[in-house]
């Protein structure tokens, strides 16, 4: 298989097509299924219906029920069967309908998929990409809004990927599918149809006019473990991923701060070089995620920055997160780590 990295010549010149994030994910799945007969998709409602968010629309019709099929409502079975298919030599791309529903599959993921390579010394592997919509901002209540990424980054043997634009979603998903280790691919559902800057009371935007909505045609991959510098700057480093990248961009633009915003894209493996380089340059670091605070991935980032960039830091590293409560239905916008919470943290960092 010819590998075309994002930076390689060709992709940047490839013709692009406007897509929302669902279309970009669908396109990635379509391209990969066309290239590799070993790729199969299973999950609740993914077949004829094409998924409740329509990410797999049209794929069963195109590739047949042997390769794209509905599953029983049993996440343990979905993940466990994927482990078995992978043991045979297939490359399953199961969908878990909402990240909030992944927990019955946790034993198969944590104790099985994640450790298969290790416990069999490479005899068996689990090249599985588990796609799942996650995150809030859609009045989904506590069972359709969670951001459980830190549960997975804590597990040895799992990679965790979170895109923040349609363009990245496609390239990262292709790389995740080609990866020979199990990958958790969390899709921020709040930005499926357009970027979200945190101002819930403004009309929603689509991806039209956003550069991330211009998606290169055909096959390309964005390597796992490579962060993207969303915006270069000198005053402050922002480390984030998913929906919160867009919120951070809006807040810092509004405040007129020359921030360097880094979209981590992959939490494990983390692009530590990009983090170090930026923090060493700016001397200030703000970590943002929507997930709950305690033992969140932000804690890991803060620890790494402190360990590796301590002598460059000019202020304590700040962390903006969701609160340590279940995601509330009606007080969603009081919960969401929006512009005010981020703005206060930025002010604290910039006050000297």
């Amino acid at each position: 298989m010819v590998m075309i990295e994002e930076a390689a010549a060709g992709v940047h010149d490839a013709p692009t097509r406007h897509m929302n994030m669902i279309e970009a994910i669908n396109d990635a799945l379509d391209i990969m299924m066309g290239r590799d007969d070993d790729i199969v998709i299973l999950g609740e409602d993914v077949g004829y219906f094409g998924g409740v968010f329509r990410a797999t629309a049209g794929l069963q019709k195109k590739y047949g029920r042997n390769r794209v099929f509905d599953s029983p409502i049993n996440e343990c079975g979905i993940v466990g069967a994927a482990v078995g298919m992978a043991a045979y030599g297939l490359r399953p791309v199961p969908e878990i309908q909402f990240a909030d529903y992944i927990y019955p599959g946790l034993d198969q993921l944590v104790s099985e998929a994640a450790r298969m390579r290790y416990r069999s010394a490479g005899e068996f592997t689990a090249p599985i990409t588990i796609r799942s919509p996650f995150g809030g901002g859609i009045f989904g209540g506590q069972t359709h809004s969670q951001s459980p990424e830190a549960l997975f980054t804590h597990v040895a043997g799992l990679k965790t990927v979170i895109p923040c634009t349609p363009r990245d979603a496609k390239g990262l998903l292709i790389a995740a599918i080609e990866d020979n280790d199990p990958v958790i691919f969390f899709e921020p559902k709040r930005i499926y149809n357009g970027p979200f800057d945190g101002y819930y009371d403004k009309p929603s935007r689509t991806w039209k006019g956003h550069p991330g909505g211009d998606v290169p045609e055909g096959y390309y991959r964005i390597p796992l473990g490579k962060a993207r510098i969303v915006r270069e700057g000198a005053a402050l480093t922002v480390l984030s991923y998913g929906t919160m990248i867009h919120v951070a961009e809006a807040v810092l633009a509004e405040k007129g701060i020359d921030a360097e915003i880094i979209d981590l894209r992959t939490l494990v493996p983390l692009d530590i070089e990009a983090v170090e380089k930026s923090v060493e340059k700016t001397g200030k670091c703000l970590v943002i995620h929507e997930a709950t605070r305690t033992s969140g991935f932000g804690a890991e980032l803060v620890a790494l920055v402190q360990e590796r960039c301590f002598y460059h830091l000019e202020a304590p590293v700040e962390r903006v997160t969701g609160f340590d409560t279940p995601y509330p239905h009606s007080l969603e916008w009081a919960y969401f780590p929006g512009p005010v919470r981020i703005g206060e943290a930025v002010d604290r960092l910039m006050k000297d």
Partner: protein
Amino acid sequence: MGEGPIPESTRRGNLPPLELYVPEPRYRPGDVVDYSHLPVPPAGQLPRPDESCEAAETWPLTLDMIRVLDEDDRAVGAWNPGLDAETLRRMLRMMALTRAFDDRMYRGQRQGKTSFYMKSVGEEAISVAHAQALARDDMVFPTYRQQGILISRGYPLVEMINQIYSNRADTLKGRQLPVMYSARDYGFFSISGNLATQLPQAVGWGMASAIKGDTRVASAFVGEGSSAEGDFHAAMTFAAVYNAPVVLNLVNNQWAISSFSGFAGAERTTFAARATGYGIAGLRVDGNDALAVYAASRWAADRARANKGPTLIEHFTYRAEGHSTSDDPSAYRSAQEREEWPLGDPIMRLKKHLIALGEWSEEQQEAMDRELVDQVKVATKEAEKNGVLGHGLHHPFHTMFEDVFEELPWHLEEQAAQAIREREIKWPHWKEEGRSDGHD
């Protein structure tokens, strides 16, 4: 003496290749629906074993279908519960009220008064007749489609609507997705959005009741789709092992969002038949026949109460509408299915039975329907005085941090202070609804 490692090529050229079987429903959008393959046994034919029978004796009942109301709207056979007319009228009323309530709440969601709603159209007999068959203080562990139980038990409609609107009077403080009620004083367990989790919990409640020498039993619900979850099998195993006083209701409404019952195993055997493998009693019942549902539910509840153990009841029905307001069933199933459903509409069937008994009339039905529409309307207006979802900021922000634990640890107090500070910036004019001092 082993054979050694598998040789490189194990292909057996003379054998046919294996084939993956993936279920496919009979009808898709636009298809003409013909249910002649679906056996609808005549009413009144099945024997009714004693509630204290051996579980194995119910085996034939798990493969057939208990039906009481016949073609001529009469109640027939050993399973006829012999209910008096007043009870029948009450059940009819509660079923019609459930439907009127669903209709209004669905429209409310479409009008933007809340984020989400789930109807139970076509499944009213299951909730209402089951509730009628239980003792008032038996504990129910429902799914999100048993609003009929709450309504039957007299839970105030206004309280339901307050929850659906997440308004300031919502006793769940706006935390839960609409329809995820909790009503302990009405024997109605907190509903989870995660599927089938309530089944082992119901078994545990029943075990606790037995540990304490109580007389109350537990009753749990699950859809046929989510009976695929491991929780279902955990519940069945525990129920069998401890002979738990519990009724496990499996509502087979044919569809789990877009996945038909074949994705839960319906093409192989009935759902009720699973009971046999666990050694517990099983019944399969026409879920659109309120009398059959009542009779089966009563049998199972009496059995549990008599220390004779658990029962799995499969209620065979049809989800007449979408999964929820977020679903569009016209994208995956034929609209004709609902029209052609051979077991009819549960409300119509009970109504016709009462009319056949000379205990009811079309005029009374129409008058009742009008009255129920009014009742729901009045309740809706009353609830709307407490607000609709809107921006959602109806409850004091501190409530967001309460009940995570019994007492707030320091970090939640700090986060609560942060949320309130943000409120003062983001919503400077916010004040606690119903109060003038803006106290938080």
